[in-house]
Every structure is written in structure tokens, then in C-alpha cells.
């Protein structure tokens, strides 16, 4: 019988610390049994690792918090003016005022709506074309060179054309965001499909699966992790391009708040908008990751146990 591959250091230590026994007692066997008994619970390892992560996560907060406190004190004691870099208390105040008037929510909703819709369009198109070109060599040869050529154009360079074609309102903004999301999703998915382990495809063929069945039961699950990663990259770019889109002319949205802050000379407004961007971006990414977690569980386990 092969022993399960679990490195259960905890239990081994326990066994080693057991009180000394008389010579001749079957201690080795006992320790072996304990280790074997612990083999069935990958959850153990997961809990240990998670617990181990906590101090690390808190450690990351030390510098931002210390910096904030130091800046607050510096401004209060007159060591710095805080005009161009308002202290945290000012930022909190500004955020509260903006939130109370409902202005902040309006801007957030406008930005989230644009990113959400633009991301949906770009991700759907990138996924569809990635699947098509991954499935058909003919389609790949016909379409991929053009897509790659378009990808070489910096997405922001499309802005003037989009405004001419689609006007200065929502459509051109969505087009820019969707375009930014499209490329990483397309490229990530296509590359993943092309690099699926040939040996797994052969398993499908030996067991008599049709091409469609192989695509659904072998290729798709195999590319899932790379697809999720590509979506995350796309989402990040979506946030980048929503700023570009809103800076080029909008009456609401966090990008508008940035621009308004610049024109009014209000650094606090700019910083609040930037902070909200950080929170929204991180939250959107977390939603994506937790939505993907159930289907990536097989991989997750692997990573934690390596």
C-alpha cells in the first residue's frame, strides 16, 4: 500500500515529543500509525497554512498605516502644509461629504456600470474568438494575424476614432473598455487552448469521445485556470481604460471626479477617487476569484500542498 502523500509535520512532532518509553516498546509502529491516520485530511494542512498566513497579511498593513499616522501627525504639528497631500483625516472628511450628498455613489455606480458592461462585452468577444481560433486551424490562420496586428495598436490610440465614430457619450467609452478587455482574454485563452497537454486529449480519443465531447470534457476544464487568469488581467485593464474613457469627457464617474479635482485644485477629491478605485478594483477581482474557486478547487489543493 502506498502511503498518502501528506506531510503532517504537526503530528510527527507530537509523536517525537511523546514521553520516553522503555526499550522494546513498539514506538516506531505507533508513530507510523498516527501519521497514517492523519493521512485522510487535506483540510488539516489547509488550516495550518491559512493560520500561517495571518501574520503575513497583517505585516503588509504596517507600512501604509504607519505612513498615514506619520503624515497625519506631521500636518497637525505644522511640519507640512498638507495642501497638495491632504492628511488622512481630511480625506475621510471629503469622502464623508461626498457620500452624504450621494455624489460619491453616483460616480461609483457610473464607473462600475461602465466597467461591468465593457468587461462583459470584451470578455465575451475575447472568449468566443479565442475558442473559435483554438478549435479551428483554418480560423486561426484567417483571423489571428489581423487580431495580432490590431493588438499592436495601443488601445488608447483608438480614442479619437471611437469619438468620431460613436460620439462622446457612453458608446465610445464602452468600446474602449471592451477593446482593452478583449485582447488579454483572447490571447490568454488561445494560448491556453494551444498548450493543452496532448496526452490528455489522447485519453479522450482512446475512450471514444467525439471532438465536441473532447472540447467540453477535456480541453475546457484544462484551460479553465488560464481563462480565469486572463479574465482577471482583462478586468484590471477594464479599470485602467475606464479612467481613460472618463478622463476624455464625462459628467459622472470616478474618472470625472479625478478630473474635477484637478481643475478645482482639490487634491483630497483626487485621492478619494483613487482610493475608491483601489477598493473597487480589488473587490471586483475578489468577486471573480471567489466565483471561480469552486471550479478550480482541484488546482487550489495542489498549490497548498506543494
Amino acid at each position: 500500500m502506498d502511503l498518502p502523500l501528506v506531510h503532517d509535520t504537526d503530528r510527527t512532532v507530537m509523536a517525537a515529543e511523546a514521553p520516553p518509553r522503555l526499550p522494546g516498546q513498539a514506538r516506531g509502529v505507533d508513530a507510523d500509525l498516527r501519521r497514517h491516520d492523519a493521512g485522510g485530511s487535506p483540510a488539516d494542512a489547509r488550516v495550518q497554512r491559512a493560520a500561517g498566513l495571518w501574520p503575513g497579511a497583517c505585516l503588509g498593513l504596517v507600512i501604509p498605516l504607519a505612513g498615514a499616522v506619520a503624515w497625519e501627525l506631521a500636518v497637525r504639528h505644522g511640519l507640512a502644509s498638507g495642501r497638495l497631500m491632504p492628511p488622512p483625516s481630511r480625506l475621510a472628511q471629503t469622502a464623508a461629504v461626498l457620500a452624504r450628498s450621494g455624489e460619491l455613489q453616483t460616480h461609483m455606480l457610473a464607473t462600475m456600470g461602465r466597467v461591468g458592461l465593457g468587461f462583459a462585452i470584451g470578455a465575451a468577444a475575447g472568449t468566443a474568438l479565442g475558442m473559435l481560433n483554438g478549435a479551428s486551424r483554418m480560423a486561426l490562420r484567417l483571423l489571428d494575424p489581423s487580431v495580432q496586428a490590431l493588438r499592436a495598436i495601443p488601445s488608447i490610440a483608438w480614442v479619437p476614432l471611437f469619438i468620431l465614430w460613436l460620439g462622446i457619450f457612453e458608446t465610445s467609452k464602452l468600446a474602449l473598455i471592451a477593446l482593452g478587455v478583449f485582447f488579454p482574454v483572447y490571447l490568454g485563452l488561445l494560448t491556453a487552448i494551444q498548450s493543452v497537454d496532448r496526452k490528455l486529449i489522447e485519453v479522450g480519443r482512446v475512450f471514444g469521445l467525439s471532438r465536441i465531447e473532447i472540447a467540453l470534457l477535456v480541453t475546457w476544464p484544462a484551460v479553465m485556470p488560464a481563462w480565469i487568469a486572463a479574465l482577471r488581467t482583462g478586468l484590471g485593464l477594464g479599470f485602467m481604460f475606464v479612467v481613460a474613457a472618463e478622463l476624455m469627457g464625462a459628467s459622472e464617474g470616478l474618472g470625472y471626479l479625478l478630473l474635477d479635482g484637478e481643475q478645482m485644485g482639490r487634491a483630497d477629491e483626487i485621492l478619494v477617487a483613487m482610493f475608491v478605485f483601489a477598493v473597487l478594483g480589488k473587490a471586483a477581482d475578489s468577486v471573480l476569484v471567489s466565483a471561480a474557486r469552486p471550479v478550480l478547487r482541484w488546482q487550489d489543493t495542489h498549490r497548498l500542498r506543494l
Partner: protein
Amino acid sequence: MSALVVRGLGKTYADGTEALRGVDVQVEGGEIVAILGGSGCGKTTLLRLIAGLDEPSAGEIAVDTVISAVFQEPRLLPWLTAAANIAFGGRRLNTAERQERTESLLRRIGLAGYGKRWPRELSGGQQQRVAIARALIGHPGVLLLDEPFSALDTFTRASLHDLLLDLWRDLQPAVLMVTHDIEEAVVLADRIVVMRPHPGRVQETLRVGLPRPRDRLAPEFDLIKRTALRAINRSLSPPPEMHRGGSGVSPWV
């Protein structure tokens, strides 16, 4: 009617390499045939052609029943649990039978209670056992084995030989296995087809007339091992005219 008949099979790759020439092999239902030979003798190519993974350049393959295979590596689908991997091989069965057979195979391969594990949580030997169960769940008439035990340590390998024979007795599929391990061939096979390289073709066929279970320490076992080794040595030496391209049967049969 043989479960598997291969006639005059040849394979020349696009780059001009001739991997196989005029290979004849026949396997009856309930028979285990081992293909033995050094590297470059086209053993794996032969199996890939029979499995339908490559197209032959010449000759024909007649298979009458469901084929399945165990590869050199387990090749489990990493996103499916051990149980789901076994069930994957039984997609033709109805749901109830598939579940029932998955459970019973998990027990038979000594992994009852391991059904919910991911492949990565299993050892190499355990993974290969799951792969064997996956290959057998769908009642195959022909089972192809491509050096399935070569990556395992000696003890694991011996236990998997026993497991394979145990499962084979139930279903009695025709088994065609490729190996470079002489002892493995003598332990498992009814007949041993020795191949010679460049291009791959059949050198000779040996019949292993030992009753199962086979005792690896018995003198007859050793005798057959030595005979097989001599055949291999002949296959690696420059070809004498009488053996060229032919499939002789060695004199001691």
C-alpha cells in the same frame, strides 16, 4: 474470431522515418500478449496505431469490440476526483451501472474511501491503479497497455501485476501490452512477441506455457526469461537472412 487482428501493418512518418514494417499480430479474447523489444523497435507506434491515435501507412487493423488503454503515465484528468476519473472510462454505461462499477472497482484496486481524492493527492502507484480501473470499467474487449508499470518501483510494480491479472480474470479482455521488462512479460503474458528495430518488425513469437499464478523463482520461469533474453539479443544483432522480416516461432515451443 480474434478480438484483435493486425495484418501487414506499416508506418512511415512524414519525415521519412520508417517506424514499422509488415507487422502481423493477433490477440484472442482472454489472451495476454506482450510486445517486447528495445527502444526504436516501434512498440509504442504499434499501440498508437491500434488505439487510433495515428494513421497507419500500410496494412490493416481489425478490432471488433470496445478498446481502452492504460498509458505509460497515469494520464488522469487532474480536475476530476479519483472516482470521476474511473467513471470517465465508463461513459457508455448507464448512470446506475457506472456508479456501481466505479465503487466496486475502487474497492478492487484497494482505494475504497479514496474516491473523493484529486489525482494529485495520490501516489504514482495509486494513480496508475485508478488508470487501470478507468480502462476496465467500460467492459473493453481489447485492452492496450503501453509500458504502464515502467515508471513504478519494483514492489509497486509487482503488486500492480497481481492487480491487473486479478481484474483481467473477471472480464477476460484481449490484452496487448508493450514492455521492455522481460520479467514483466513472462509474469503476465501468454505469448511474447519480440520485435527488432529499424524499422520495427516482428522478430519471433514465444509461447509462455506456465500456469498462473506464476512463481518468479521457479526454474521454468527462469528458463523462459533466458529464452526471451536470447531472442532480444538476436533482435539487436545484425539480421541473419533467415529472420529478416519474418515472424518465426522459436524451436523450443
